[in-house]
């Protein structure tokens, strides 16, 4: 389809240009009209983004001495006096081609194009004014054209705002493979220009045939350009042989540049797909580290099954533990309010808290110690004698031995900071202590021994 577009470059295209006067439409016309002169350049024009289009619009409008300087009127004017404009354009572009050839020879590769023009930022910001100022002299325009074409030789789906960031890219990221650049979000406007389903491979083939079929009206300089550009892609490709896709954040816009991989489609959809797939695989790796036993499993499906099973098992564990907790809570009346009101968990100041905890611990110990004594006093004939007997030994030892759960506690929460461990210890101690005190005070003999048994 593009073949036809370019082949049919000629006078018979005005009907296309009567379409709404968008800059893109105008550029299409421009590219088609100027095809015999410089297909590569015009192709780049064809592919450029709207900002560049506007630059070129202004540039070409300055070149064309038609009475329609504004962009909006350009196409209309072009329809009218197209022959004149065409001839003028060809002449102008021929001149530019000369200069372009010279400057291109100076800058050997697309990376090293001399950039005497103002930095990209200014270019972007003052694109309406500076291009006009620059284009008053041909060399500036020619340089930009050189850059654009060089850029185009590397990328057919180019969408960058300016060639500068792209040219700065390759030296930095030498791992890039691909001669093609596209960015996902901006692709849609370009996609309208681009016939769907075109791969860059086809385009490169077309380009080479185009250059061979260069019309005789092309100046020798244009042939130089062609050769330059033929060699340029090779150079570009060589420098970008190894490696993966790169993402660079454009300083001017928030888009992420995505480089298409070698030999793969540069469809906007497929590129977005690839970005998405890589995101997913990256996160899967993250998940793999979290889920135990996932390292041996390879393949997305199995790993995802593992992950799902793990999440299910965790949820089941929570449910089971909550059941257990509820059953535990029936036996023990926990006075959590009191515990929490004692500021056991302050949100700040760990040191102070630690001191508090230590105090609580000691107090808890004493309380429990007293408890054990009271146990002995109250219930000497309880079957839990075997449990109570060790209480006759020193309080601290009994304290420790009688609460193996605490030891287990310490082991299981060894990963805890000591802070939390002591907290939980203290809570439980306090809880027990308070329970015992309360129950003893209440003095229902039936309950007390059972509770004591339970706690011991």
């Amino acid at each position, binding site marked *: 389809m593009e073949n036809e577009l370019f082949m049919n470059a000629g006078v018979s295209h005005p009907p296309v240009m009567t379409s709404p006067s968008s800059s893109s439409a105008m550029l299409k016309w421009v590219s088609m009209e100027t095809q015999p002169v410089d297909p590569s350049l015009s192709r780049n024009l064809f592919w450029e983004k709207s900002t560049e289009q506007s630059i070129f619009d202004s540039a070409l409008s300055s070149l064309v001495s038609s009475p329609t300087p504004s962009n909006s009127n350009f196409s209309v004017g072009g329809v009218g006096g197209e022959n004149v404009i065409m001839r003028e354009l060809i002449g102008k572009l021929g001149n530019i081609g000369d200069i372009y050839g010279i400057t291109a020879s100076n800058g050997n590769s697309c990376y090293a194009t001399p950039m005497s023009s103002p930095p990209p930022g200014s270019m972007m910001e003052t694109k309406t004014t500076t291009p006009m100022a620059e284009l008053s002299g041909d060399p500036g325009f020619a340089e930009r054209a050189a850059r654009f074409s060089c850029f185009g030789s590397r990328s057919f789906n180019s969408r960058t705002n300016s060639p500068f960031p792209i040219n700065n890219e390759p030296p930095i990221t030498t791992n890039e493979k691909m001669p093609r650049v596209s960015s996902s979000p901006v692709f849609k406007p370009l996609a309208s220009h681009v016939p769907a389903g075109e791969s860059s491979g086809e385009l490169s083939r077309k380009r080479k045939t185009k250059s061979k079929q260069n019309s005789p009206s092309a100046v020798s300089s244009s042939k130089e350009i062609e050769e330059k550009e033929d060699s340029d892609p090779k150079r570009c490709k060589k420098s970008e042989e190894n490696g993966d896709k790169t993402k660079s954040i454009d300083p001017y816009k928030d888009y992420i540049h995505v480089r298409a991989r070698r030999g793969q489609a540069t469809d906007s959809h497929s590129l977005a797909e690839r970005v*998405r*797939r890589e*995101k*997913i695989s*990256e*996160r*899967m*790796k*993250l*998940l793999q580290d*979290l*889920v135990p036993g996932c390292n041996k499993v390879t393949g*997305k*499906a199995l790993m*995802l*099954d593992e*992950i*799902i099973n793990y*999440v*299910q098992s*965790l*949820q089941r*564990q*929570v*449910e089971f*533990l*909550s*059941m*257990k*907790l*509820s059953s*535990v*809570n*029936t*036996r*023990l009346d*926990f006075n*959590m*309010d009191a*515990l*929490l009101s004692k500021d056991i*968990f302050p949100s700040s100041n760990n040191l102070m808290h630690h001191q508090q905890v230590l105090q609580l611990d000691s107090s808890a110990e004493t309380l429990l110690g007293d408890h054990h004594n009271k146990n002995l006093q109250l219930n000497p004939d309880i079957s839990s004698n075997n449990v109570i007997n060790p209480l006759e030994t020193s309080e601290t030892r009994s304290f420790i031995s009688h*609460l*193996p*759960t605490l030891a*287990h*506690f310490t082991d*299981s*929460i060894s*990963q*805890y*900071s000591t802070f*939390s461990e002591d*907290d*939980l*210890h203290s809570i*439980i101690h306090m*809880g027990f202590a308070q329970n015992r005190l309360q129950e003893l005070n209440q003095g229902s003999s039936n309950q007390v021994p059972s509770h004591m048994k339970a*706690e*011991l």
Partner: protein
Amino acid sequence: MASADKLINTDVPEKDVFAFHFLQSLSNLRKQNPFDTPDQKNYRVRKIKKAAYVSMARAAGGSSRLWSRALLRRADKDDNKIVRFSRRKWKISSKRRRSNQRAPVVEEAAERLRNLVPGGGGMETSKLMEETAHYIKCLSMQVKVMQCLVDGLSPK
């Protein structure tokens, strides 16, 4: 993996934060209902479970994660579960058209994950995986805290 972790932040607060929140919710439960009658066992279990999840969501940085927000929302609106579900289905159906072309194997698993992870209904697969990672971390933390509590409180 370190580089990926820098990009994807799945930090989870320490266990004591979880413990604090959980105990707070438990104490609130105690205040509300004296859990005495065994008839109410299921009810109580569910309450405790809900308290566990809610406290986990709050402890894990309530608003910075989608799943925690969805959990809290779900906990607040117990009556409107049906409404929520239908909304989620609508969200999924709008995505399903696009996502059917994308790696159907992954998408099946993602569908199952969405059922498990709260708030997973309206998320893209990559976002879903982030949330899952954080959710797994928080869940494991909560399980540890609860285990320790149960062990500490359980009779010998």
